[in-house]
């Protein structure tokens, strides 16, 4: 044995932690600057008008009629979105997990598709279908109605698109809960005399309630802060929400930072309040009651209603995928006349967005640049955080996760405004880097949560045995933990890449001429180009995203030795 390592001198108590402590302090400092400082900047800005602190501006803002209307719109849209996404999400999850609905295996992955797609592209595709005059359905029904029956440029239209796109959140949470539930809990209800539907209502759903509630609050908060869809569908019909007003305040000339900051603070307080409420409500009640045994929860026989269930799930998918298909068709037409015509078939729209249109080109290149580097940096940061939190005894590590989770409560548009106010006077402003930093911070919670569960899925004894074999901390992490979570890290990278590619809100606050992202480019193209061109660009983005998603599923399926 090597005596050299055995005889190394012991060191004194405080240096127990030594460099580790420096690293922790450093991490706290970075998180404080990137997570807390932009928020503080927004809050401080709301109280400053000219010089000195004042609340006068706040009073002024909240007595303006169109702002009161925007607050009301925001609330109505959020509530409608939750009702839609909650109802549809829970129903679909139950049908997939607990019924004998045919085609379950086909529907399950399809139901998750909107989770990955850009809701702005979704809004665009719904324009194609249900815009008051030019919309496909409206033009089909034109002969029968005096007025176009559907108007997507409305509170209801916004809520519909948001509901469709946030259904997968509720679906995913509920499905997970239903699939991990102990079958004997339901069996014993049946043995106690409850019918199968009674059991579903009285036992199954209440046991999943924490998961469902959690998802619903998440959807509610997200819908309240969402920016892209209200911008695309609300502004044409003069339906304003808090987020579009924040954007408008910045785009006025001169920009009204104080007004934007006040509205942002209000929006942030609202979302933060609900997130905190969610944490409080769910503390200590996680029901679901997982069982280690191999019992599969029994499926309910729907009888004749099986095909009705297929209809319900099919209708949801039709609402999501149908408009996309319409958009796809439109993108291959040189002009849209309300119906597809072979004679008008063309690739000119794609040629234009890929090779000719400067903004489209820039958006594509910029987004790929930001997303590639950003996802790499984010995965590295999140893995480091997860390792420090779960694989060290460093003092203060417990506080890191809550701090890094703060952006969960911050709508992208508020975060974007924060970075704008904080960094507008620095050389970072007007670069791609500022957008990249905003993305990394905004989705830090997603990255960290995934990294944490990856690290936790590796048994501690695996790296402890490396320590006992003579490896110090970093070699043990690098040679044991990291290789074991590598497939998960690839999945996480792709997930973040996809998320960055379709980001709208903070990009909208931070882009300048030359640093447009793909979503910004899409929104600008929508303003001055016909459906065909913007459709082609939207399809392009969607294809990119779907390719990544297919890859994620490839990477994260089976494999993994013993975990």
């Amino acid at each position: 044995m090597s005596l050299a390592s055995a005889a190394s001198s012991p060191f004194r108590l405080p240096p127990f932690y030594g460099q580790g402590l420096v690293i922790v302090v450093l991490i706290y400092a970075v998180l404080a600057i990137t997570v807390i400082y932009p928020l503080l900047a927004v809050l401080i800005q709301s109280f400053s008008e000219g010089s000195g602190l004042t609340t006068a501006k706040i009073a002024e803002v909240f007595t303006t009629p169109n702002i009161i209307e925007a607050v009301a719109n925001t609330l109505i849209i959020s509530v409608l979105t939750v009702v839609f996404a909650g109802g549809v999400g829970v129903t679909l999850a139950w049908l997939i997990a607990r019924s004998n609905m045919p085609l379950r295996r086909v529907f399950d992955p399809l139901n998750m598709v909107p989770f990955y797609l850009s809701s702005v592209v979704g809004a665009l595709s719904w324009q194609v279908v249900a815009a008051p005059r030019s919309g496909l359905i409206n033009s089909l029904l034109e002969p029968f109605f005096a007025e176009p029956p559907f108007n997507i440029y409305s509170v209801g239209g916004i809520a519909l698109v948001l509901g469709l796109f946030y259904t997968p959140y509720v679906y995913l949470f509920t499905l997970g809960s239903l699939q991990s539930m102990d079958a004997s809990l339901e069996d014993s209800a049946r043995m106690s005399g409850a019918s199968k539907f009674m059991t579903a209502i009285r036992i199954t759903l209440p046991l999943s309630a924490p998961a469902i509630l959690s998802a619903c609050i998440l959807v509610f908060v997200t819908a309240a802060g969402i920016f892209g869809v209200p911008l695309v569908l609300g502004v044409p019909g003069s339906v304003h929400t808090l987020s579009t007003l924040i954007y408008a305040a910045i785009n006025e000339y001169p920009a009204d930072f104080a007004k934007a900051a006040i509205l942002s603070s209000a929006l942030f307080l609202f979302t933060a309040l609900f997130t905190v409420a969610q944490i409080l409500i769910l503390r200590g009640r996680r029901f679901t009651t997982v069982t280690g045994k191999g019992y599969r929860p029994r499926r309910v026989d729907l009888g004749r209603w099986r095909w009705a269930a297929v209809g319900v799930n099919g209708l949801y998918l039709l609402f999501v995928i149908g408009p996309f298909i319409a958009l796809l068709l439109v993108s291959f037409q040189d002009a849209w006349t309300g119906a597809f015509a072979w004679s008008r078939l063309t690739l000119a729209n794609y040629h234009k967005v890929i090779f000719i249109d400067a903004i489209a080109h820039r958006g594509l290149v910029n987004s790929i640049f930001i997303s590639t580097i950003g996802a790499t940096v984010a995965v590295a940061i999140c893995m480091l955080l997860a390792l420090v939190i779960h694989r060290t005894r460093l003092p203060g590590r417990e506080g890191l996760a809550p701090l890094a989770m703060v952006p969960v409560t911050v709508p992208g548009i508020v975060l974007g405004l924060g970075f704008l106010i904080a960094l507008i006077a620095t050389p970072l402003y007007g670069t791609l880097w500022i957008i990249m930093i905003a993305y990394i911070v905004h989705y830090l919670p997603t990255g960290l949560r995934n990294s944490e569960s990856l690290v936790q899925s590796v048994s501690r004894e695996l790296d402890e045995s490396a320590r006992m074999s003579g490896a110090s901390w970093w070699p043990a992490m690098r040679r044991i933990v990291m290789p074991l979570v590598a497939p998960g890290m690839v999945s996480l990278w792709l997930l973040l890449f996809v998320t960055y590619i379709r980001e709208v809100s903070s990009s909208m606050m931070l882009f300048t001429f030359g640093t447009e992202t793909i979503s910004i480019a899409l929104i600008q193209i929508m303003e001055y180009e016909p459906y065909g061109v913007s459709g082609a660009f939207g399809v392009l983005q969607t294809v990119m995203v779907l390719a990544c998603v297919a890859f994620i599923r490839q990477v994260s399926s089976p494999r993994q030795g013993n975990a």
Partner: protein
Amino acid sequence: MHDARGSIPGKSNEEVSVSRSVAVNVERLVMSFGTVQAVRGISFEVAPGSTVTLLGPSGCGKTTTLRCIAGLEMPTAGRITVGDRVVYDDTAGVFIEPERRNIGMVFQSYAIWPHMTVGGNVSFPLTISGVAKREAAERTRAVLELVGLGELQARSAADLSGGQQQRVALARALVHEPRVVLFDEPLSNLDANLRERMRTELQLLQARLGFTAIFVTHDQEEALSLSDHVVIMNKGLIEQTGTPQDIFRNPETAFTARFLGYSNVFPGRVAAIGDAGSVAIDLGEGRTLAALWRSPAPPRQGDGCTIAFRADRVALNPANEPAGGNALPGVVETVAFLGTCFDYTITAGTLQVQAEGPVDHPVARGQAVNVSVPAEHCHAFAAVAES
């Protein structure tokens, strides 16, 4: 794998056994998790080349103690010495990281790295400490031979059976020739047959290589059969230490007795005190048994106490025959045939006595019997407030 001695290069039996008088010394070790004290100031020594088992129910602090020796936990207070090196001392501010303690460890889950081959797992400790490739390969091969896995070197570690995983874990713990090897419930994940075989193999290996072994287990049989010394732990404290025979024959506390399978444990009062530790214990309802006092503190007349005896020390005599002294009259309540013996429950007033009897002299249910226990097999302990 017959001549294992010297098959690991640079190692011989003498080198290890001559070296020092204490291989591991734990002094006043305290480990708190928040407000909970898992280990409450325990001390014990482990002689070089010996096998010591920390035995106790789950939550008694045995695994925590082992992990403190390994360096995987930072103790709250105390001092730990491995060989001649202090690896932890709270007052001197010493804490040696686990990788620098030169201790081998076999984990409960075996912790085999699934992304490596068997050879990769076993040679890891050598590559990490910079042993030359050739030598590392040679030593890996040798130690795999030793545990009987010579032919599996290139196999992926992800598809090994439980027994094979255990051997790989053992080989990995031994390959860098640590003086001390720690075992955290090494046999608990194996089925009964395999467990017995691995137990024997472990003993043979240790005899050959002469390392000092510290085991943690909750299985008394494993502890008694494997070790030179047993440390019985309860609620973060040491209840008793001694050789397996010593502990088994002379438990010092009611906890130890109960934990070692003394199935008859009853409360009573000291009725009379005789010579050489002999006492008479009043079990109530006029029943009295003679016993030997085991607690360190001397007995006092009238004090509450606990009496314990094993089921296999009990003799059953028909009620009409002479009882032969130190007996309780009772009625056979249940009879169970266990193959090598009969297992009886006898109701003696409010007491339920467990007894074993030979297969060739069955006693029928409902029969009135005298349950007699020789006084030297009846252990009496001062009563402790159990929480």
